[in-house]
């Protein structure tokens, strides 16, 4: 039983959230069945809808992985947003200068540059924690602001092109991710494959490698880890760097697969969404993929609902309830146990 909790809790939470939201929809005088039908159709009803959902899901998987990896290692990386920005920004700076390079070279160089930038940005917080004890929640939030303003300076001054919204030039065509599928104006890039590979890599790293063993041990019990020859300060810095690399990668795929240029709105809170997604996905790579898909689908679906006259904020309600229930998993556990006990007595 205990083994399946990680799956049961989020699943039950989602169902409960949908039921509660149904009452809210009823309270505003609409039919919940109709609303949900529209939402499902909006998210999965056509190939364009599916592509749209996948495009929205892609960066969310990566920021979810970033935060989830941090949690597993015992660090709370609130700075995925800033790391994502730094990743995208660095990838932009590299990508716009690679017109001469063949695609395989341009692609790998841009991706690696973005990941390294994210890793470095996060490692600052890790290093500060290891050396001075400064809490990563505080330092990563400060680094988020620095990244935000730095990027806005970059696209307004050194990298600026055109007029209107501040933006960078487009990256070289050879540095754009290949398109897997195109439906009307919607393009699905290879970013989704990168995200899924990242999830698999994280799974293997955590469950199969000696590094994963050390990272998790340090996350569970730093005293025992230190006793067992695992350097806590080294681990904190490394874990933050890995987490940041994943967040940086989120920025990279958003840049190379969707926008192809740096825009101020590129990160758009996806780094913070990573926290919710990691929570719902129980910090497990597979769980995170599903949680990101849920969020992606809710978002595309809610646009459709909006057209049908139901506020898209209903999605915020659903999201909020799911997170609340997952975080307070005691409540869900007790609800399930009550059922079991009643059955036993009957």
């Amino acid at each position, binding site marked *: *039983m*205990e083994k399946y909790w990680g799956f049961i809790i989020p699943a039950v939470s989602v169902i409960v959230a949908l039921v509660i939201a149904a009452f809210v929809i009823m309270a505003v005088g609409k039919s919940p069945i109709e609303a949900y039908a529209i939402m499902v159709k909006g998210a999965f009803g056509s190939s364009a809808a599916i592509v749209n959902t996948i495009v929205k899901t892609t960066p969310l998987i990566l920021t979810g992985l970033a935060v989830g990896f941090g949690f597993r290692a015992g660090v709370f990386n609130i700075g995925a947003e800033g790391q994502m920005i730094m990743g995208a920004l660095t990838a932009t700076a590299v990508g716009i200068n690679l017109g001469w390079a063949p695609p395989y070279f341009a692609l790998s160089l841009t991706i690696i540059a973005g990941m390294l930038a994210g890793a470095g940005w996060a490692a600052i917080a890790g290093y500060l924690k290891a050396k001075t004890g400064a809490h990563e929640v505080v330092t990563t939030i400060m680094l988020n602001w620095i990244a935000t303003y730095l990027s806005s300076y970059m696209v307004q001054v050194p990298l600026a092109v055109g007029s209107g919204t501040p933006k960078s030039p487009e990256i070289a065509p050879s540095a754009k991710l290949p398109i897997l599928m195109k439906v009307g104006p919607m393009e699905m890039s290879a970013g989704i494959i990168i995200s899924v590979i990242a999830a698999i890599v994280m799974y293997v790293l955590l469950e*199969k*490698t*000696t*590094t*994963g*063993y*050390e990272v*998790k*041990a340090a996350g*569970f*019990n730093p*005293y*025992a*880890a*230190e*006793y*067992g*020859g*695992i*350097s806590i300060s080294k681990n904190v810095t490394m874990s933050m760097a890995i987490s940041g690399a994943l967040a940086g990668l989120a920025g990279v795929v958003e840049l190379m697969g969707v926008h192809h240029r740096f825009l101020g709105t590129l990160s758009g809170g996806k780094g913070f969404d990573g926290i919710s997604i990691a929570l719902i996905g129980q910090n497990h790579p597979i769980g995170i993929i599903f949680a990101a898909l849920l969020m992606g689908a809710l978002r595309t679906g809610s646009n459709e609902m909006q057209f049908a006259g139901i506020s898209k904020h209903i999605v915020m309600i659903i999201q909020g309830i799911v997170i609340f229930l997952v975080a307070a998993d005691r409540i869900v556990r007790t609800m399930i146990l009550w059922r079991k006990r009643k059955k036993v007595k009957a």
Partner: protein
Amino acid sequence: MYEEYAVVMKGIVKRFPGVLANDHVDLFVRKGEIHAIVGENGAGKSTLMNQLYGLLHPDEGEIYVFGKKVDMKGPRDAIRNGIGMVHQHFMLVGNLTVAENVVLGSETTKGGFVFDLREARKRVKELSEKYGLHVDVDAKIEDIPVGMQQRVEIIKTLYRGAEILIFDEPTAVLTPQETEELFEVMRRLKAAGKTMIFISHKLNEVMEISDNITVMRLGKVTANLITKETNPREIARAMVGRDVVLRVEKPPHEPKDVVFEIENLWVKDNRGLDAVRGVSFKVRAGEIVGIAGVAGNGQSELVEAITGLRKIEKGKVTLLNRDITGLDPRSLRNMRMTHIPEDRLKYGMVLQYPAYYNMILGKHWWEPYSIRGFLNHPAIFEDSKKLFEEFDVRPRNINMLGGNFSGGNQQKIVVAREVSSQPKFIVVAQPTRGLDVGAIEFIHKTILKLREQDVAILLVSMELEEVFSLSDRILVMYEGEIMGEVKPEETNFEEVGLMMAGKRLEEVRS
């Protein structure tokens, strides 16, 4: 029904996945008695008590408290029924005062919600005086010794109106003096009509303090004994199911070359005060050097410094002719120094890890457990199974999480891991804390076997018996200094006791 009993547990059954922890257990505790429960590690004692305190719900069976049938959903119900529990791992908040900790979470409120600390302080003082608990109500928890923290736990239960007090291995963390003080308190509580349930692995304690004894084995009750009419040997036999050697034979063995040496070691404690003050000694291959002393005289800091967990301020440490002063735990482990820590929950285990991962902690980067950065799970499983067998860890389930093993079995996992790492030098701190008599015998034999294999062994223990029966040489520590070195066959408890109280060997023998 059962009016003359404070507690009756009838036909209690409690199952965990793959384990029948309580198998139709009956427990009868008379009003006003001190009732001991003894049994091997994993016999189901803590499980039984957790059900009485509402932390677990029995699968089958009935519980009567003062003749009334009860069905408890949580500790709150237990407290309402007059039951209190002194946990082995104290549930106190370090930076609050004694009085604040006592009222925390109980409903002494004025006008519904105002927290009435003044009134509470007065009650805590009264309780403290009435039962001779000697606590300073305004002291911060983090500043007072373990024994006093435990007495705060006792006050906490009394404050909530407990008539029945459960003590789960209260003496495991106490010094002999503190144990005596605890017994004094228990006697006073008994005189005031309180009922107590007392769990311990130390049979002499059980003989001293209890009126009746329930013996458990493999989840069942195997004997109900009257303390006055029994003896430790009979209890041990009922516990283990065979005769137990209460003291192992130590064969003569000639020590070899010096393996480990410290010279003029200085170490500070957490508050920045000198805890170890210029200690020097040597340990040779095939020799057990025991460190005796009252807890808190620098032994813990000494061990942590030697094993790389605490900074060395001054002095030199040598292992196998190499200067290892200030080396980190990983390098020390690579040099085949291993360590059985005194606090197995804090240092020894990752409770959230399955047993097989706990079995490789501290050697997880060695072959065959790790090959080119990848964990070699088949090898890990195989060795864990072997060690479970060899060290009789129960249940024989290497997949169970570390935190789900009984206290004694956790200790066996730690010992198995450290002993099987082919040490050249092993630091052994409180190796038998919380172990049953059978397991103690086994661990003692294991340590002696290491000695046969010419491992250098440093033993730190608060149990004088243990130090005497295992050591080749005994060093007595007092306030961070060595009071003298004696051979167990040339000294006695009195002499060592005087040294533990701060007299140097020269003074004692002059």
